[in-house]
């Protein structure tokens, strides 16, 4: 799960990580009054969307950049009025962009140095790892590619937690003088505590700024959370902003379907995550483009299958649907009954290609055949993908 920058900033501040002064505003008036309350003469106004690359992005109406630096509270108000209610397009949002409902108004910071700091999960050791670099303010992947030696990875023992010597090691690597390790070490411990306590999948502070006055502050931060642990963090669940999510994803979540919207025109319904992924690969190998990833799971009910069908049929981009099921626990005849029921309540709008295999496959195929519904059966995997691609292109299958 992702959250907004201002929410991440609030969580970091609450954990004891220094952040620049400021607050979130949902109207130009509010933005101006926040600016008036800040004891400074230069302000940053940042559009709040769930995407990176805001500074280099542009708004739907042509207004440039989702991050502005201005001198007066009045200008803060002007900038906020251009951003709020507008849609910001960045290299991460896709061409449709993300709606802006709020801006973060903050004091601008006199930056001496920009650093990079993140805490993520290291899969191979099964431990949290601190990733640090003196080259902050840019994407860490670019640093990793050009100068891997500029990145320190400090693995933390999950039972012991971050040790003081490790915090000192990271701080020294980040270029802090040995007499000035207190502030960065305290910040590291606070960030690590946040990572553990909130079941984060990542805490990324980029840039971590050293000000001309010598303070260390988190200028921008991205927090990610482990979806599996949300059950024990109601406070994090409440931070979710549906306006930033794909509406198809939201509809799927409502029915507990494992769904990811993609950009093609072949809708997919598959059981099992691995098979669903492999089905996307098959469609592309056949020259088509999938409209979605959809795993109905091993024990999908008739109700879930109906909901899945509605979702695929309701997507205007979908020109053909490929159903790929390996019946294990979910028996093919049960699935076939579910599909027939779903098609009766929502008659098929596009060609549907069905590939069934596994438990009670003959009974399942028989039910589909006798239903009289316009379903195109396929036996082989590649055959199914070829038929779906042909159908989406408006051609008759082989």
């Amino acid at each position, binding site marked *: 799960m992702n959250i907004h920058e201002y929410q991440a900033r609030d969580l970091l501040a609450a954990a004891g990580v220094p952040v620049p002064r400021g607050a979130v505003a949902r109207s130009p008036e509010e933005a101006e009054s926040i600016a008036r309350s800040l004891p400074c003469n230069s302000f940053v106004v940042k559009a709040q969307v769930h995407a990176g690359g805001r500074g280099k992005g542009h708004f739907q109406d042509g207004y440039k950049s989702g991050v502005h630096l201005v001198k007066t509270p009045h200008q803060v108000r002007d900038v906020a009025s251009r951003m709020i209610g507008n849609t910001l397009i960045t290299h991460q949002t896709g061409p449709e962009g993300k709606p802006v409902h709020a801006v973060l108004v903050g004091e601008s910071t006199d930056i001496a140095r920009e650093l990079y700091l993140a805490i993520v999960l290291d899969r191979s050791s099964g431990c949290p790892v601190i990733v640090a670099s003196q080259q902050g303010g840019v994407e860490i992947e670019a640093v990793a590619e050009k100068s891997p030696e500029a990145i320190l990875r400090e693995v933390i023992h*999950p039972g012991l937690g971050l040790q003081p010597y490790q915090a000192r090691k990271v701080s020294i690597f980040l270029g802090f003088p040995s007499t000035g390790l207190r502030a960065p070490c305290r910040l590291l411990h606070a960030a690590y505590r946040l990572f553990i306590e909130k079941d984060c999948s990542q805490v990324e502070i980029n840039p971590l700024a050293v000000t001309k006055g010598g303070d260390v502050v988190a200028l921008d931060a991205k927090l990610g959370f482990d979806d599996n642990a949300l059950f024990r963090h109601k406070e994090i669940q409440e931070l979710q902003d549906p306006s930033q999510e794909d509406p198809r994803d939201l509809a799927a979540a409502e029915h507990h379907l494992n769904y*990811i919207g993609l950009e093609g025109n072949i809708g997919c319904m598959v059981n*099992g995550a691995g*098979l669903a*992924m492999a089905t996307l690969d098959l469609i592309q*190998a056949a020259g088509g483009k999938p409209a979605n*990833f959809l795993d109905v799971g091993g024990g999908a009910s008739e109700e879930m299958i109906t909901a899945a069908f509605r979702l695929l049929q309701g997507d205007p981009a979908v020109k053909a649907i490929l159903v790929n099921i*390996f019946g294990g*626990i979910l028996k093919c005849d049960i699935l076939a009954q579910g599909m027939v029921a779903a098609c009766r309540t929502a008659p098929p709008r596009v060609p549907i290609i069905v590939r069934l295999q596994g*438990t009670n496959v003959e009974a399942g195929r028989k039910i589909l055949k006798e239903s009289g519904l316009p379903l195109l059966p396929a036996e082989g995997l590649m055959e199914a993908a070829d038929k779906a691609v042909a159908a989406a292109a408006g051609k008759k299958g082989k």
Partner: protein
Amino acid sequence: MSVLVDANTRLLVQGITGKSGSFHASACKEYGTQVVAGVTPARGGEKFEKTVPIFDTVSEAVAATKANASMIFVPPEFAADAILEAADAGIQLIVAITEGIPVMDMMRVRHALSEHSCVLIGPNCPGIITPGACKIGIMPGYIHRPGNVGVVSRSGTLTYEAVWQITSQGLGQSTCIGVGGDPIHGLTLQKAVEYLHADPDTKAIVMIGEIGGSEEEEAAEYIQSRVKKPVISFVAGATAPPGKRMGHAGAIISGGQGTAQAKIEALKKAGVHVAETLGDIGQEVVKALGK
């Protein structure tokens, strides 16, 4: 011969009174697995299907029934505790089926288990089966057939696809292991390949990977330096968009790491026969075995 489980394996089921736990305990029993005990706190003294004794704790169950393997269906919020309880009671093989365990919990479990000699398979996995002898997990038993192909996979349904293709070619499986789709789990692909390689009855190994992490690459290195048996592989997710979790918590390309292309390249370099598409696995196995 087989890997990790055989006809002598004595299985206990943690969470045997739950909906999935009871359904699959029943299915395993029907397949022929020796299901000797169940564990559900506060249900000790009852019987499952009138024959299998239920205990409050794993250690009581082990003392009374000599169970040596456990299958876990406990809900995600209590699953880490269940794994630790099984390890502490001396269970040698722990198969955690539960999906949705918090990563932080698994991080601690994995470290705690380094002090035990047990093997953990999963979580978020289909389980392990030695066809005709012992099934521990949620896989449909009938698609398997005793034989000489070892299978290891990160995905449930892809394992079934591969197994079905192998069976349809007239071949069979020695042991099939699903290591699970979570980013932190017990048995790795490489370790599973090591077991299968050491098993004299396994003549070929099928390894099914997917995007995310680097286990395929690590296994490829091991295969290149140590494995003499033919290895056939398939990697799912070649066309998955970066940054999205593809159903499995562990199936994600992040920061350019964990792509299918990199994994396929590493496997090919190690001399592995990589199936181009999912439908080709069965034929690749036949080719590799020279039949």
